[in-house]
């Protein structure tokens, strides 16, 4: 097993894709000379040249739209939108072209495109640079959404996304880039579309993804010390959502706490909570609980930003409340 940082895993995945398929190219702001805002593409320009590693102007709508057109034209573009914050400028292209064209054309035109974006808060970059809007993409039919939380997923999800005939949004949490971990070589074909149980437990199900997985596993540790066995589920794919995996776990633990860094109201955790209330109501021994980002444009000051985001202690508190307060009817 090789040990890589999440950043290195992303870079390796891009390198591999460029080597294996000459239809693949990378474009985005500063992916070339600069090496990528998060250094994910460092060295690739030298290795693959400016035709396949393309620095774009600050024109999110145009270069995402050009990625859509190039995919329709037979290429396999990897478009990097520097961060999810700026993807709002390309959202029309993603929703009205990438996601809709296959259907609007009666199945004639597919868009085999991958769009990578850094997401998330936690670096004191304030309101305009700290969004966690993954839920918006998970809402849109016609696209798929992946969110690697581990180095192994960061290493292998890209290839699966590129192999997919439809547009795939691939999120990378900016706080994960420096984290190192073992890359587990997949035994069979790599499946990015199903959730993974990252820690088994019988007392409560904790659902997380991307940047929230680490905090959630840390919370599970805290709880274990108190004799509470939490099962931690990593969604991995946000669209389609692997609801069955969640329901299987809830059928075992009868309690669910959903963790998401995004704003709580109408966030990702709401969908999971509603799905449980719809399909596993009678399994529940306690209300579902959500631990999400506070309803505030993320403030700059460190102590305020920390107060605005989920953390292990806050997750643990939610679980304790559930176990104290929760009695089957």
């Amino acid at each position, binding site marked *: 097993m090789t040990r890589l940082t999440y950043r290195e895993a992303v870079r390796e995945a891009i390198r591999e894709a460029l080597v294996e398929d000459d239809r693949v*190219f990378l474009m985005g702001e500063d992916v070339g000379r600069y090496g990528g805002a998060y250094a994910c593409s460092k060295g690739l320009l030298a290795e693959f040249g400016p*035709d396949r590693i*393309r620095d*774009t*102007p600050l*024109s999110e*709508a*145009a*270069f*995402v*739209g*050009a*990625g*859509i*057109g*190039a*995919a*329709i*034209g*037979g*290429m396999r*573009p990897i478009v990097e939108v520097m961060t999810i914050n700026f993807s709002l400028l390309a959202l*029309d*292209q993603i929703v*009205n*072209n990438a996601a809709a*064209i*296959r*259907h*609007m*054309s*009666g*199945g*004639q*035109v*597919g868009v085999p495109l991958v769009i990578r974006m850094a997401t998330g808060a936690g670096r004191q970059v304030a309101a305009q640079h700290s969004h966690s809007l993954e839920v918006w993409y998970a809402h849109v*039919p*016609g696209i*798929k959404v992946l969110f690697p939380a581990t180095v192994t997923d960061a290493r292998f999800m890209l290839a699966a996304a590129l192999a*997919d*005939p*439809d547009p795939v949004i691939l999120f990378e949490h900016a706080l994960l880039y420096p984290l190192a971990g073992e890359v587990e070589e997949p035994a069979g074909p790599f499946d990015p*579309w*199903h959730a993974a149980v990252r820690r088994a437990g019988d007392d409560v199900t904790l659902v997380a993804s991307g940047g929230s997985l680490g905090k959630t596993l840390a919370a599970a540790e805290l709880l274990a010390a108190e004799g509470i066995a939490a099962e931690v589920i990593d969604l991995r*794919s946000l*669209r*389609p959502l*692997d609801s069955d995996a969640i329901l299987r776990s809830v059928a075992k633990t009868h309690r669910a706490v959903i963790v998401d860094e995004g704003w709580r109201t109408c966030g990702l955790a709401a969908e999971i909570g509603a799905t449980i209330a719809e399909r596993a109501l009678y399994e529940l021994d306690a209300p579902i609980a959500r631990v999400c980002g506070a309803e505030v444009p993320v403030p700059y000051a460190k102590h305020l930003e920390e107060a605005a985001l989920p953390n292990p202690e806050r997750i643990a508190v939610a679980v304790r409340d559930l176990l104290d307060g929760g009695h089957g009817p």
Partner: protein
Amino acid sequence: MNATAFRVLPAAPEPGAAEHDRALLRTMLLVRRFEERAAEVYQQGKIRGFLHLGVGQEGVAVGAIAALDPEDRVVAAYREHAHALARGVSAAAVMAEMYGKATGCSRGRGGSMHLFDVAHGLYGGNAIVAGGLPLACGLALADRMRKRPHVTVCFFGDGAVAEGVFHESLNLAALWGLPVLFLCENNFYAMGTALERHQAMTDIHRKGDAYGMPHAAVDGMEVLAVEAAVGLAVSRVRETSRPFLLEARTYRFRAHSMYDPELYRSREEVDVWRARDPIGLFSQRLRAAGALDAAGFAAVEEEVAAEVAAAVAAAEAGPWEPVEHLLHDVLAPHAGPGAAA
């Protein structure tokens, strides 16, 4: 390169030109009669949603597309019946699409605003104003990277010029040397907003200078002028693999859509333009040149009438997509989880 530089007389002398000119007339007439009929059918409630007619603008799409190679690509907006028909999509497939039938060119999923036919190089039918421009850049980028000789022609209206993505797309195409012909169909209105009330500088083609992009304007009411201008522009794009901005000045004779009371312009203004009907102008020239006589015109009208009638009959008879197929073509079939889910 400017509007007056182009041949506007029929090419009678050149061999084969007579047939060519007849074909241009026939296509413009087909578009005209097709749309007139579509409007009637709309009144009967058999076509619904938004229906945007290009009556008066036929010279632009027909002239431009006549100058393209079969493998060139076309990206159009939502007023694109002419583009589909000129590109060779059958009137039956387009009419069926507007009926919402499974036999439509987009299987009834798209309707009038989303006509697709990849076999004929038609990549829609885009109803977000200016939404097709980056798509055209991407198609051209793929052709350039694959060293294919195709040119992508992107049609859009004067209103689209105000959208940010117009600016982003022209800069990107010029910067990267993408083989795109940006063809602005300037009909002097964006819905009810006149050009001078949505553009601070109304000489649209001159905006090419902001991107170091060659540009020109052409009289969109003269189908041969459009064909010549597009011919020159496209060959230049093909040779240099650099984009070009062409402005075709034309006019919409009818309402913006079926709901428009046309409060924003005068009958007089419309009549002035109607006097320059592209079909009328071209017919006069053909007649004057003795290239086509009364019987010839009648024959064209008959052919076109028959084609439109057959298209409507086929659309009427066409099958509906089974409602069980609602979720088809959201994702590719067998594309893993969620596919046709």
